[in-house]
């Protein structure tokens, strides 16, 4: 048959629907998250001086270099500029003590990028939170270097807290419930206590988390269910025996609880995406965190709680609302 349509006209572009796209790209999401982490980093610098900034820069540079190297090696598209490597590096620095030696954070970040993320195929394909994989390896391998604490030295306005010389959770564990009676909750809230760079200041993390929520980069499900379940679980035991178990609010305000709820447990790709799945994920994180804090071998359970729940993510994605138009079928 003679062809009806001549092809000597200028060719049209053919593409699939839809023909408009939202402007948001992966880089937007990542740089927003990075912006949300800035208050936590600033708080770290405020309380621990420029050692904190130095560690953050080392981690971010290492993460970028490892990411670029791995992508080159594996013949993949270079995506180092989308911000995900910077987030990984910065988060790693934020969960380390300001006294950690440079080679430890470097090795930890490299393990996070290479073994935690890139060998699985890069961003979004890693089953476990890459930052926490790197942290877990470093924490287990170099215990002394990872658990050396310093007193906060606020740069201006504030006096150093000085009530405790170790992070609140470790004081609670070793010296009992009464040891924290004098500690003002305001110190816990603003971060005037020993601890890791980015996790001491709850208020700074909260600012970043609320920014992410307002920008709709994360949803409320995981942070709210994480914090609420941890607090309610703590409340239950506090009511049972206040001599053994401390006030749940102290647990909420100390350690990695807020950083975990807003940043670690909302890491793209390693957490469920359905609403019910996210809520169960958050509840699981909260409960496992508290169980480890009460009876576990580690002082702060957030990292292992998130890693354990990461393993359940494919299962939790089965929890989903009913699909449109689905009706019961008989065989």
């Amino acid at each position, binding site marked *: 048959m003679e062809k009806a349509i001549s092809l000597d006209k200028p060719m049209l572009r053919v593409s699939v*629907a839809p023909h408009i*796209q939202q402007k948001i790209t992966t880089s937007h999401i990542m740089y927003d998250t990075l912006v949300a982490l800035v208050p936590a980093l600033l708080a770290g610098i405020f309380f621990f001086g420029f050692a904190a900034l130095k560690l953050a820069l080392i981690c971010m540079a290492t993460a970028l270099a490892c990411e670029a190297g791995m992508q080159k090696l594996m013949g993949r598209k270079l995506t180092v500029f989308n911000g995900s490597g910077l987030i990984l590096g910065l988060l790693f620095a934020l969960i380390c003590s300001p006294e950690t030696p440079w080679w430890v954070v470097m090795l930890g970040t490299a393990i996070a990028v290479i073994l935690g993320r890139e060998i699985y195929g890069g961003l979004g394909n890693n089953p476990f939170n890459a930052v926490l994989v790197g942290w877990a390896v470093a924490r287990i391998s170099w215990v002394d270097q990872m658990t050396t604490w310093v007193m906060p030295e606020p740069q201006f306005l504030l006096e150093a807290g000085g009530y405790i010389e170790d992070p609140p959770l470790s004081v609670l564990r070793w010296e009992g419930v009464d040891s924290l009676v004098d500690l003002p909750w305001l110190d816990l809230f603003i971060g005037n206590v020993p601890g890791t760079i980015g996790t001491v200041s709850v208020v700074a993390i909260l600012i970043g988390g609320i920014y992410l929520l307002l920008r709709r980069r994360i949803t409320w499900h995981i942070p709210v269910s994480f914090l609420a379940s941890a607090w309610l679980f703590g409340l239950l035991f506090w009511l049972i025996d206040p001599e053994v178990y401390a006030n749940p609010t102290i647990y909420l305000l100390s350690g990695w609880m807020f950083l975990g709820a807003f940043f670690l447990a909302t890491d793209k790709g390693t957490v469920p995406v*359905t609403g019910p799945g996210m809520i169960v994920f958050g509840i699981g994180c909260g409960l496992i965190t508290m169980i480890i804090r009460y009876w576990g071998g580690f002082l702060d359970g957030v990292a292992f709680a998130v890693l354990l729940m990461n393993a359940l993510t494919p299962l939790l994605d089965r929890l989903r609302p009913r*699909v449109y*138009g689905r009706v*019961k079928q008989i065989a």
Partner: protein
Amino acid sequence: MGLKTSFSGVSLPPQKVSNPAIEDAPLPKRVVLPLGQNGNRVCKPVVEVGEQVKTGQLIGQSDDFLVAPVHSSISGTITAIRPWFDLSGNEMLSVIVESDGNDSWLEEIRTDEGFSDKESAQLLTDLKAAGVVEIGPPSMPLQAKFATPEPSKESRFLVGIPQTKPVDTVIINGIDAEPGMAAKGAVLTKYSSEIADGIRILQKLIGSAQMVLAVGSNGSVNSPLSGELAGLGVQVFRGKDKYPLGLNPILIKCVTGLEIPLPDGNEQDIGVAVVDAVTLLHLVEAVRDLKPQVEKVVSVSGAGITAVKNFRVRLGTLVQDLIEQQTGLKGEPVKVIAGGAMTGVALFSTDIPVTKDTAALIFQTATEAKSFSPDACINCGLCVRHCPSRLLPNELSKYCEFTMFEEARDKFLLHCIECGICAYVCPEKRPMLHLMRYGKRELSLA
């Protein structure tokens, strides 16, 4: 009357509409009239090459009740009856008419005031003879929506839902669903008496069904129309500005609270018929004015036309001829889309005729045209958050990408209503909708 349920979706960027009026597009020099709407169901041509035809003259007819008859949209000479491409590249037998420039009609158009006294069977016959087609998907002759359902659907395993039901709710869809579409709003504002007459005809056709007119949040029902609607007992449903409210499955859910049983059910199974407001206009012209459907109201936008314009285009007009007559077009369009910006089809050639199924034409210049990327999904969950069918598009798109179609079906791929939101929000710009359609097509062929 408001929304019965909420749904996930997105707020699309608002569009400007230049003027709610509907202009007549210039008469084309030739038209290409495909003898069917979809697939391989086509009419038999009842004319021969070389024959003189007048506007509105029957040129193709079929016994199949899912194929609408075809009428000549201009007067002139039939130069060929041969296959021609449709917008997806399939060939369909088509009649080509060269215009004589007179546009002389077979019968003078007159308003038949007695339409309201006609029996419903007579109205249905008039409607069928005029070849009015409800735009898809799937496009079908309008009267097929109201016909008594065939008993062949008994193979469906539905519990608790009657398998076939007479229509008890008619929703007139006056919501311009997607960017690039503005015709429904224009029809509602400028043709209120036609809309009222159309509702009278529908009431006669369907008897005691409840009528609902759905308008968008910016769609206005002007006072003469609202008065008529109150007199006719029609409820007005005001939607909100959220895509995909204008798509039928979601609109039905929001108006009636019922869901179409998927994968293989349709709106008849829950006793609902949705009629497009533009189709309603064509229905009134067919039954009241006894004028076969030879025109289609098409919204045109893009490439310099920043505000959407509405045109009455003769069926069979080639898109190329429209471009040449379009004075508003600036710059060379590199992409031409038939349909809305979210679900439309990008044409591979401008030699494609406007059909009864064309709701809009969007011309995009090089800067407006978007492209997709082959990058991997990062599991951010944005598509899941926005999917109005509550699916997991991230997972489905991966299954389809790696040809695991059976698994995709088990994860409810066939429940996808193809609104395109997943691809719209995807930060990696993955061709999500394409992958879903690909998977559905492969499953339908298996």
